[in-house]
């Protein structure tokens, strides 16, 4: 920097080194925002009637209690089991029907009135009916999780198969690939990014499904704990399943993202090209 530039900078009062700016410490700001909220919550939470609001240290204590008694783990495992069964069956059937509807027009035209109608209906509205049909036990919950997860996967698989370029399929056919080969070597890999996007949606929807279902039946599982603690006005315990469910949601969607990157890495490559 020569003297002239120096002078010019000084004249228009731009200093080369800037002074303290709050926007340089955003990470610090984030952390202090969270800490401040926790402190305020702790201070005011202790003043409020504990029937209505709890405070962070009480929640931490409740968390330790529930974990030691083993109650929480048992209910969480029960929920996860139902969740896994419902989700896996919805993924299997969703991908299967999506492939079928995407590849064969007859299947598409036969099924799409129902698929669109059921997809537009909020699935929570079906919960009372499903409880009527399947009772209050695991089958009803599995059915609700299944229905919550099915449509995102089905719709995404369907549109994924529809976007597979016809020339890829034609080349496969020219080289004498049978229908099975065309499915496994061309259509599924090409539609995989779409399918995985559907899976990611389904994981979140199914989580909401299981919570709602368990809140309704209120017999076992995380949702039942929510209802039990809120009816008992045990606000501190109430927050434990809430935090657990939030963490579960984040972990599951991260896991699917990771899986997506491993299973369909060509998506990124395609974007980069």
């Amino acid at each position, binding site marked *: 920097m020569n003297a002239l530039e120096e002078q010019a900078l000084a004249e228009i009062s731009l200093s080369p080194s800037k002074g303290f700016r709050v926007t340089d410490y955003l990470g610090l700001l984030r952390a202090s925002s969270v800490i401040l909220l926790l402190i305020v919550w702790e201070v005011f939470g202790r003043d409020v009637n504990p029937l209505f609001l709890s405070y962070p240290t009480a929640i931490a204590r409740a968390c330790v209690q529930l974990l030691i008694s083993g109650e929480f783990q048992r209910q969480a495992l029960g929920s996860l089991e139902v969740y896994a069964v419902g989700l896996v069956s919805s993924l299997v059937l969703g991908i299967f029907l999506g492939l079928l509807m995407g590849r064969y027009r007859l299947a598409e035209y036969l099924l799409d009135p129902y698929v669109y109608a059921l997809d537009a209906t909020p699935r*929570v509205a079906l919960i009372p009916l499903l409880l009527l049909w399947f009772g209050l036990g695991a089958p009803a919950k599995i059915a609700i999780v299944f229905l919550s997860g099915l449509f995102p996967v089905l719709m995404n698989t369907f549109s994924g198969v529809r976007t597979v370029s016809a020339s890829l399929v034609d080349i496969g056919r020219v080289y004498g690939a049978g229908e099975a080969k065309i499915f496994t070597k061309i259509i599924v890999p090409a539609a995989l990014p779409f399918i995985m996007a559907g899976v990611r949606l389904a994981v979140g929807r199914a989580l909401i499904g299981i919570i709602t279902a368990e809140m309704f039946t209120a017999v076992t599982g995380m949702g039942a704990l929510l209802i039990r603690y809120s009816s008992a006005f045990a606000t501190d315990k109430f927050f434990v399943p809430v935090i657990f469910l939030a963490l579960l949601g984040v972990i599951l969607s991260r896991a699917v993202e990771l899986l997506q990157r491993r299973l369909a890495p060509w998506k990124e490559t395609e974007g980069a090209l």
Partner: protein
Amino acid sequence: MAVSLDEQLIQELALRREQRWSLYDHPNLIRAGSVMIFLILWEFYGRRVDPLLLTYPTAVAWAAVQLIWSGELIRQLLVSLGSLAAGFGASLLLGVGLGVAMGRSRLAEAILDPHVNALYATPQVALIPLLMMWFGLGFGVKVVVIFLFVFFPILINTVSGVKNVSASMVEVGRAYLASERQILFKVVFPAAVPFIMAGVRLAVGRGLVGMIVAELFTAITGLGAMLTLYGNLFETARMFVVIIVLGLLGIGLIQATQMLERRMARWKETERAVN
């Protein structure tokens, strides 16, 4: 001569000018057939099953007529729509306002986004029992639940819309001595509208879910309460009427938002055409 040569070639290659009539050219025929067969089978078997568990199409139609005639369906529908509109309106105001603040100011973003992310990650249904404890069973709690369900898609889309406004547009505004207010309302906000509308479209479906869940739980008024009531009374036909109304409501609301999206964010298409 040329014509007949073409004709001959086509015949030799066995290509027909006019394709044979194919069912695949009339997908709606297949769809209609599929639905008709389903309804007939349902009618046939539904009449044999215990009416407490399953109903049949004509019974559903009859229940629909009764519910509309007595005015109950319309009354509860209006109650539901009222809470949906209140919750959605509040969410839209606060979500867009806060979203613009978070998108424009890094300070506001740093302060708010840990909380926003934490609340967004929490499945909002899990908070309903707590909200019922705080707000009771009436109109208020429904509005709050709908607000929570709708708020985050709108907020997050607004933030990314505001951040996506090209800096050169803002600079042009500055160069023409626009005030901060003018930049906000004439540059930033219109540029972010397509994003905001995409958030609104996402939010509509979630708002409907929030409304139903809240009403199912409070079980006093609204369409969700009708579902709980008829479920407890084993009036399956009436339950189906409510479910169908909710499905139609879902389709109608999403179509309406898409139309609004096209009207409000018209330049989005234009922009793409110009590029």
